[in-house]
Each structure stands twice: as C-alpha cells, then as structure tokens.
C-alpha cells in the first residue's frame, strides 16, 4: 500500500526513525524539501556515513520500489538506461522472413518497439509502479565519468528519456531521486544545481549511540557507550581514513559476537580490523595508542 509523503520535518524524522534510521534535523529538513519540491537529493560525505542507507530506508518506509544504479567508470546507456534485446530481434527477423512476408518497413518498426526493449535502472525508475513513483538511487556518482553526468542532466531536470527508435518517454510522476557521492572527484555544478545538496557528516556521540542501540538492540549498554566514545576519539586522530558509522556498527557487532561487555586493550587490538582499513592506520593505533585512548574513554565515562 502506498504511504503518503511526510508533511513536515518532524514527520520526516519520524518516518526515518520508524525504519531505525537516526537522522539529524538538518538531513531531515533537506530530505523533506527534496520530497516536497520533487527535486533530487544530492548526498555527499565520507564512506560509511549512511548515504546509501537513506534511499533504502525511504523506499521501505514509503512502500516504494527501490531502483538502484551503481555507478562505475565507463557506465554507458546500454547498462544504465536501456538496451535492445538483440537475440529476440534476430529471431523475429528470421521468423518473419521464413513466413515469406518481407515488409522491411513494418518489420523495422516491429523489432524496434518496446516489446524488444530491455529496461535498465534509469528507465525502470521513470516508468514507475502502480504504488507510486519509485525511489531511484544513483550510487557513487563520482565513480562514473563526465559524459554520463551530462547525460543525467536531461533525466534529472525533465524526468524524461529519449530513445531514437521509439520517442521520448516521460515519467508520469517523477521518481524520488537520491544521488550519493564519496567526493573522489567534484561533480559538475550543472548537475549539483538541479539537486538539493547535503553533506552527511559523522554523527556526534549521542546520535551515534542512538544508531548503535537502534541497529543492535541486544547490545550491552556499557559496551555501546564505551565503543562509541572510543570511535569518536579515534576520529580526532590523524588517520588516513577515519571509521564511518558502518565501521562502528561492524565493530559493535563483532564485539557482541565475542560476548564482550566492556572494552579492553587486547580486544581492541584484535578487532581493530573492523574499524580501520589501512595498515598504516592500524599499526599507528594498535598497542599503546589504543590503550591510551581507552584510558581517556574510561575516564570520560566515569565523570559523566
């Protein structure tokens, strides 16, 4: 059953938290505006801060279909928008010829009709569903190249796609578009201009704790406090890649699997791989540095 769009920012927050997504108010505001104004939402931020998750949560909460387009370098129209079903077309041509009736003109319009079209994510998203327009997630747009970005301009501003053999396909209702980028390169202004922009930052301690508790309901409350405080301190360190929320959740999960109820130096050293993904970072933190951070965390929590 299609659910209605939220009417204000509080509704938006409620909608997200209903799916266990703890958002801060700035994100909820931008999301609310994007939904209301029918504009694409452009989310930028470090890896693992929950950009992709927003689209998934939105589709679940609104009961809409999620159409995901994972970008990569060299992504082309054939794999992003549509492709002709060549083998079916060939069989069709052979059959028509075998039947003896060769009307080239008619055949041409037959085999280049929508029956022979394979729809790829962008076209699927524009077609929509019975239960309302779908949620289109264009993930990691920075991985693709400029020509594809330029192609997106038409889709994002008019929500239509032109197929030379068929004509222009326009969305009856524009899909909800979420674009994410890890900022491995700058996206062109022309594209950004059409979207509402939001920088997804690392959450503060309080929010991160909420996230951990929401995602891992069974976790020991002392452990969750400690590990969140530890991760927060780790982000202040001079690291090549700071751990994201996804890493915090992984780590929390790992610690629960190990039946830990409190952090200790050994455990941290052994499970650091869940948090840090660069050998340089791991060797820097492992051992004395980690022990020192843990001391600070314990002190901080004792004072509260």
């Amino acid at each position: 059953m299609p659910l209605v769009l939220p009417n204000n920012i509080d509704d938006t927050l409620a909608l997200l938290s209903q799916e266990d997504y703890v958002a801060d108010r700035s994100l909820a505001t931008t999301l609310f505006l994007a939904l209301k104004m029918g504009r694409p939402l452009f989310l930028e931020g470090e890896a693992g801060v929950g950009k992709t998750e927003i689209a998934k949560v939105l589709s679940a909460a609104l009961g809409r279909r999620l159409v995901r387009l994972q970008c990569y370098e060299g992504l082309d129209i054939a794999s992003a928008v549509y492709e002709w079903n060549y083998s079916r077309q060939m069989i069709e041509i052979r059959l028509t010829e075998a039947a003896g009736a060769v009307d080239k003109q008619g055949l041409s319009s037959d085999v280049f009709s929508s029956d022979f079209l394979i729809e790829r994510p962008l076209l699927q998203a524009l077609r929509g569903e019975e239960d309302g327009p779908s949620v289109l997630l264009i993930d990691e747009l920075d991985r693709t190249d400029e020509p594809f970005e330029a192609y997106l301009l038409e889709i994002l501003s008019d929500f239509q796609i032109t197929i030379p053999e068929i004509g222009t396909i326009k969305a009856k209702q524009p899909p909800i578009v979420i674009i994410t980028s890890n900022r491995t390169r700058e996206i062109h202004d022309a594209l950004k201009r059409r979207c509402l922009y939001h920088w997804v930052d690392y959450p503060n301690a309080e929010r991160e704790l909420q996230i951990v508790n929401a995602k891992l309901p069974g976790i020991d409350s002392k452990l969750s406090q400690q590990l969140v405080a530890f991760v927060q301190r780790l982000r202040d360190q001079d690291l090549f890649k700071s751990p994201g929320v996804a890493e915090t959740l992984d780590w929390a999960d790992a610690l629960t699997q190990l039946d830990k109820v409190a952090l200790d130096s050994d455990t941290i050293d052994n499970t650091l791989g869940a948090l840090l993904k660069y050998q340089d970072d791991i060797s820097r933190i492992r051992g004395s540095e980690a022990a020192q951070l843990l001391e600070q965390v314990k002190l901080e929590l004792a004072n509260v």
Partner: protein
Amino acid sequence: MQAPSDNQGRIAENIMYFARLLRSAGLPVGPGKVLDAISAVRLVGIGAQEDLYWTLFSQFVNRKDQRELFNQAFHIFWRNPHIMERMMGAMLPTIKVEQEQELEEMSRRLTEAMSSGSFSGKAETDSSKVEFDASFTFSEKEVLQEKDFEKMSAEEIAVAKQAISHLRLPIADLPTRRFKRAEKGVQIDMRATLRAALRSPDIVPLKLKTPKRRRPPLVMLCDISGSMSQYSRMFLHFMHAMTNDRYRVHCFVFGTRLTNISRYLKHRDVDVALDKAALGVKDWSGGTRIGACLKEFNNFWSRRVLTQGAITLIISDGLDRDEGDGLKKEMERLTKSSRRLIWLNPLLRFESFEPKAKGIRAMLPYVDDFKAAHNLKSLVELADVLGSQPSKQADIPTHFIEQVA
C-alpha cells in the same frame, strides 16, 4: 572600399594600428576582423567615444577573459592623443620614445606588445601574425632550447615562456569501457548491425565497435621553495599551459605547505592566472617540507584527484628541510595511488649529479621516471616520454638506484 575621405582614412588607419596592438597583446584579431571593424565603425558613424568602444568591442572581443585587455588597450590607445605618435615611434626603429614610465600601470602583456616594435627592431608591414619567434632567428632559438632557465636573461625568459605556452603533453590515451563505432573494431556493434540488416536486402553487414580512448588526468605538484625559485616561475607557466590544453588537470604548489592552484590556473589569460595564483599562495621561496606537504596531499587530495588512472608529476629538487623525515612513507602511498609517478628535477642537469641529499634518496626508489627539467629541450623531451610509455615502467638511470640502495 572606395577611396576614403581624409578623416575616414585616418580612422581606418587608427583602427588598423589598434588591431595590431590587440593582436600583439594576444587577441586573435585577423585582417578580416579589421576590415569588418572599419566597415562597422563607418556604419555606426564617428561620434561618441562610447559608441566607438562598443563597436570595436563587438568586433574584436569574443571571450569573456579578453574584456579587460581590450578595455585597457582601448583607453590607452584612444583616450591618449599622443599615443599614436608613440606607437608610430615604436613601429619605426629609429625613433625610440621613452615610454616606460607612463605605461607602468598597463597590463604587462600590453606593455610588451606596445614596445615590441622597438624590441625586435622590425616593423611588421603586412598583417601577418606577430609571434615571438618572428624576432629570433632559428639558431638563436636553438641556443635557447639548451639554455638553463636559471641563466636566462629577462628577455630570454619571456621568449621561453612563450614557447612553453605552446607546449603540449601528448600523454598516451587510456582505453575506456565505452565503445565507438569503427570500421576495424574488435566487437560487433549489435544495434548498428541490426539496423543495417533491416536496410539491406539479403545479407547482414557486420558493424564493429572499438573501445574509446581518453586522456588520463594529470596531477602536478610543483616545489616553490627558495632553492627552486628560478625554476618555479617557468613551471607555473608550464602548468598554466597544461591546464588550458586539456581537462582534468590538477595543479598544486608546495613549500612549507600545500596549496591547490588548479582553479586559479583555469583562467585563460596567463597574467591573470598567475597573479591570482600568487595571491593564493603564502609560502613563496621559503623552505621545503616535502614530506609534510605530500602527507597533506595524500590525506586530503589524493582520493579526490588521483582517480581514473591519473599520472602524477612532481617538480622538485628534492632538497628537504626535514631531511626526508616521513617522506618515504608518503612517497610509497603516492606511487601506489598514481598510475605513473614522474619526477622532474632541475638538479639533474649537472653531469656529476649524485643522489646524496636525504630527500632525494627517500624519493628516488618510488618514482617511475626521473627526468631533468632545466631548459626548454628537457620539457619537450618530457612530452616524448609521456607519449610513448603508457604504464608503470621504471625509467631511472640505473646507477642512481645502485647508489640509493
């Protein structure tokens, strides 16, 4: 054109001189444009100066960044009644007028353009393009090719800068995952084949496609510390030329800290671009902390600019104030994230160069190419290197490696 009246004749002549001034200042003003401008001025009529301004503007300016140059040239040329005599003086080598003082405020290029007549000692009688090499004979250019940037006179530097602005780096293209139609392709283009099959009566003509190729991004890191000061000016011109030749070029300068100057250099006008860059950079001609700067680059920029097969160019003498502290680790990371790492070192010009300095010893094992860069010739050779070898393939004189090891 009919025989003009006296007054009109002078206007036409003035427009011609004005056009010549613009042309030597770098605006693309051809003889056709001059004729157009003369007839345009005739159409508008000679009246208010503002009319004349916009009439000529409409003819001679066709890009946003030319406006300022035109504006200055116009006011100097048409507002100052004596400037014509000066110009004439400048054109005729025998009469040399002291003009430096009044021209102080002018754009450097404009000034050079105005004095170019006396400088070259050769007046252009026809409307051929005024270019720097018109004033130098072939052999002089040859000498300049080999001359060290450090030993050049101001005039020679100007010529070298001009030559650099024409330099192109033909970096070998990389195949992409996209395809284009090609007669001798490697894969069948099904869409085109089927369409062709429907058109042709009996046979199915196979249409082929081949991967598109495209230039990889280029990232340049230029040392602007005191020991490099003679060279860094030239390399800024080099970076400007590269930025405007191709897209996906990122330029950084470093001394004690790292500055991204890509945005400044995007300006097409080299003077404006370098002025802007100069304002943006705080550590000209100071010490060098290569390790710290590379660390900053690795942490904040490498993931944003070293994508899609980027080539990295380091321009530095490798003389590091921190004695190569932490440099090794950062170089290792840099080389791992670049498709190819090229080091241009002006010190390599000395026959007896030995990698003694700690900074150099720390950097050398990680670079794919180690090249001299002290004169025009070496920069041209660099173009050959980049054009021929598309991938990681060490090109360091072997005795250096032995010395480092």
